[in-house]
């Protein structure tokens, strides 16, 4: 009798397993890649400040408190849509570092003057050096970095009120 139950349950379990796997696949976004840098510190870098060419920043700016690293560019339309929400996040006291990615410096500064500057620090990465080390493959991308300077999460695409409330705010609150 036990054997019969087993032969009945086995295909059922196999079917459920497949169903869950395929159902998940139905709603997963294939363009969203998992970052291999999760759990690793921000790579070493030296980049200029966007406003002052003689001012240099390095990975030390990520130590001390949890913050977001937002990769953006003026050639990226989604970044424009995202910018307003970043401004409101900054007003709420969320610390954000901006990484201007493969962009024109003058245009970028103009953008910040016109649309507001939500960033604590503005890194200028004209050649995409730090972005390459981070595994950035498009803009916008946002990295969640804890107070030790370790990358905890990567969000691909824009941060908006909806996904911030649903997924991202708890992740940010959980950083230590």
């Amino acid at each position: 009798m036990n054997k019969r139950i087993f032969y009945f349950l086995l295909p059922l379990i196999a079917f459920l397993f497949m169903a869950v796997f395929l159902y998940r696949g139905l709603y997963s976004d294939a363009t969203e890649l998992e970052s291999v840098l999760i759990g690793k510190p921000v790579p070493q870098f030296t980049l200029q400040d966007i406003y002052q060419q003689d001012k240099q920043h390095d990975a030390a700016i990520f130590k001390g408190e949890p913050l977001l690293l937002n990769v953006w560019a003026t050639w990226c339309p989604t970044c424009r849509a995202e910018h307003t929400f970043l401004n409101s996040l900054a007003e709420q006291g969320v610390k954000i570092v901006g990484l201007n990615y493969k962009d024109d410096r003058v245009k970028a500064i103009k953008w910040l003057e016109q649309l507001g500057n939500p960033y604590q620090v503005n890194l200028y990465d004209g050649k995409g050096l730090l972005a390459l080390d981070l595994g950035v493959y498009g803009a916008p991308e946002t990295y969640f970095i804890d107070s030790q300077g370790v990358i905890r999460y990567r969000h691909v695409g824009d941060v908006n009120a909806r996904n911030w409330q649903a997924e991202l705010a708890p992740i940010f609150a959980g950083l230590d």
Partner: protein
Amino acid sequence: MMKTFQRFLAVLLLSLPIMANAAISAHEFDNPEQEELFRELTRELRCPKCQNNNISDSNAGLAQDLREKTYQMVKSGSDKQEVLDYMVARYGNFVRYDPPLTPAVLTLWIAPVLIILIGGFTVWRLARRRKDAKPALDVAEQERLEQLIKQTEQEK
């Protein structure tokens, strides 16, 4: 007007092979081995932005960057494994069209074989069970059945 267009089209078509080669010819190498390695790597590395292109075929900004990085590394004497390691450390195994054999990859290879084996075994067992099955009636019962049939036929 038409003729100009035709001429334009002809020039365009004739220059296609040149454009296709542009990704290679823009770079200079110290020796043919380096060039061969560069070709091999840009064919095997996958563009993370465009999903189904290698970085040799793609003109996405990111593919250009990765191509340039590959060139620099090859030119400065890195071997194939060093370049692959560099890319995988940043973009994960996704960036390789020939990924290493991880448990997940192994599952992909083994699962179909396993399913065929389980299916075959089940069919074999079912077939055997049917052959071994006892006849529904033993000898005495069979005789009684035949008697009953005869009786009914006589009564008709």
